[in-house]
């Protein structure tokens, strides 16, 4: 490795560090505007043309706010936590190939890297929740840990099929394999659906935003944070949404591959499409309960992703021909299973406990 390589690598990382806040700014604006439109209001409007400067204004406001530390907080744990959430998130960004050349670190095990690193973020959240010294934060953290660790499994297993198809864990190779055959969303629709659902749960987005649910635990681990530390969590959340969208683009939607337009534009288009979908969900779906969420993961998504893996294995052994019959069959089967499991396992009514009722007053 020459000196030039080192310089280039540093520049790449610096670019990503600038890119991350930019992504968050654009996304918050897009989210608020889209949410506003769906909710029959204007969204940001006053700051700048069409409210375009609302997001930077908010960012500046956050930076200037006092960063409070509660008296009951475990001081150092509380103060370090935002960095442990923000750092790995940026690190994941280095592994994502925007185009063939535009990738900060092209790893042979890229797929493993981008999916394993987000698990480190959980440690940051545990520290935030524990360190805050707040019971709501603790409950939120417990929810987040349970949720994030459980959903790692279907997330990884659903992607294994793609790795089998492409015969590689290198993200650039996966994209190129798709460019030469078909987008994997065509042959792996079940895996794609599972990936998006598990990804939403991983990033704590609606309808799986149980850990930070404002109406229940008031932001969970983030409850005590303010100022720039809160902004870091906020940044991480939106970068995570971007990562989810970018990964589904790379793994399932053919990455930068596409005719006519330059590759980076294709990548941006596809990612933008997935991001819009994720933001759209927030405006139209209520939140699940924690036990329903866990049931969905262990009883529905995990068996489904394993089933999907079996289907892919058949292809890996017997070639593409059986896939033509197998893919529609597996989709129908998966959908049928999903519907049944949803009504049987997730929507299951719970018997209520006997109540302590006041005894009727006697006239006296």
């Amino acid at each position, binding site marked *: 490795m020459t000196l030039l390589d080192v310089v280039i690598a540093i520049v790449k990382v610096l670019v990503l560090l600038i890119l991350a806040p930019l992504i968050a700014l654009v996304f918050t604006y897009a989210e608020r505007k889209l949410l506003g439109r769906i909710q029959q209001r204007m969204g940001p409007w006053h700051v700048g043309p069409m409210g375009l400067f609302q997001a930077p204004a908010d960012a500046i406001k956050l930076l200037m706010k006092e960063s409070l530390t509660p008296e009951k907080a475990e001081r150092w744990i509380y103060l370090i936590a935002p960095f442990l959430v923000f750092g790995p998130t940026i690190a994941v960004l280095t592994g994502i190939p925007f185009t063939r050349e535009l990738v900060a670190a092209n790893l042979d095990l890229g797929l493993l890297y981008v999916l394993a690193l987000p698990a480190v973020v959980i440690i940051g959240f545990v520290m935030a929740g524990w360190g805050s010294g707040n019971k709501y934060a*603790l409950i939120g953290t417990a929810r987040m840990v349970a949720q994030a660790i459980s959903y790692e499994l279907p997330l990884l297993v659903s992607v294994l099929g793609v790795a089998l198809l492409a015969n590689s864990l290198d993200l650039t190779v996966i994209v190129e394999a798709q460019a030469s055959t078909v987008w994997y969303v065509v042959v792996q629709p079940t895996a794609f659906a599972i990936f998006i659902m598990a990804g939403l749960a991983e990033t704590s987005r609606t309808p799986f935003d149980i850990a930070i649910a404002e109406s229940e635990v008031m932001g969970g681990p983030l409850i005590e944070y303010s100022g720039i530390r809160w902004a870091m969590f906020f940044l991480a959340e939106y970068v995570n949404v971007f990562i989810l969208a970018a990964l589904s683009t790379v793994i399932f939607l053919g990455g930068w591959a596409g005719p006519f337009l330059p590759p980076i534009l294709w990548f941006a288009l596809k990612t933008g499409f997935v991001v819009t979908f994720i933001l759209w969900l927030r405006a139209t779906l*209520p*939140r699940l309960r924690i036990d329903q969420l866990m049931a969905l993961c262990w009883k529905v998504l995990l068996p489904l992703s394993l089933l999907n893996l079996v289907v892919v294995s058949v292809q890996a052994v017997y070639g593409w021909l059986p896939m033509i019959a197998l893919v529609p069959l597996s989709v129908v089967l998966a959908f049928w299973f999903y519907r049944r499991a949803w009504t049987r396992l997730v929507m299951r009514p719970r018997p*209520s406990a006997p109540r302590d009722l*006041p005894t009727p007053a006697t006239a006296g």
Partner: protein
Amino acid sequence: MRSHPREMGRTVTDTPSATDLATQELTINMGPQHPSTHGVLRLILTVDGELITKAIPDIGFLHRGIEKICETWTFRQIPVMADRADYLSAFTTEFGLMIAAEELWEIEVPERAEYARVILAELNRLASHFMFYASFGLDVGFTTPTMFGWRTRESIQDLFEEVTGARLLHNYLAVGGLRLDLPPDFKDAVAGLLPEIEKSIDQCNGLITDSEIFQARTKGVNRLSVEEAARLGLTGPMLRATGIARDLRRLLSYSIYDRFDFDIPVGENGDLFDRYKVRMLEMEQSVRIVRQALKGMPDEGPFQGKVPRILRLPEGDAYSRTESPRGDLCIYLVGSGATKAYRVKIRSPAFVAASALEALLPGAYLADAVLIIGSTDVVMGEVDR
């Protein structure tokens, strides 16, 4: 509803934590600054993980001594305080107070005023239920219903502003009728608003009533039997959700409610979904009533009956029972020959609902607690008074 065979005979909910693992219980303080406690309700919850084992509602943060103030002000000044009790449906409380007062004075209310009162009270019920919809949507985890509910509520409040000059706290009803005459285009304005309300109810239903996640969150959760509801003293939509068609508008036919044709929607299980659904169906019935009232309302006529210039409350007492959006709203008025009331007592349905939380919450998940509070539709102004 069929329950899973494994759960037959089990009395505790299906979380293992209650029996299998010894875990430390946590006492958490929910409110008065929690976003989902509908104002300033405070709940002291004891939770075992996510499961609530004990709940103590703590009220009084919005106590303004309304009943006491009513005893120190002259009767003409009282409606101002009545508005502030249940600030989400101010007309209902004014209505109840006036019915009690008119019973005490034995004053006849002119036809036109009666119709106007019913129209305004039903519109206020709609506004209140839209507010319930908005906050329930927020409780269940997303913001879109909030905007949907609020939008139409705004339109209704604009109409109120046109009629009474105030959006929320009207001070518009007076003994023997109305304080001021209705604006000349009142009927057209209300008639113009009704299609918008109907469309909005449809939209609201489309947004969450049929949503699978919403149903998964609410169906079969916190079921309530008729006996339980009766023993807790619950009234209004909370009671009707358990399957009893008890509505004071039908039961007592106070004012002129016997002239209207409307249904009383009831639920089946008394679960969260039924409590929500009953309110949504009630809104449609309110629109029906308003429509009939508009048809029957005379265009001309006095807006106030024969009322003495100086209102001295005669000795004696009167008790009015009205159906507020939250249930039985009863007002007890005692006069002693002075211009001030000797005693004004408000039996508030929300107060009963808030106290019922102590029995409703244990056994529920923390996430459901928010929905249960939302389903009681408490207005803290009325609870604390």
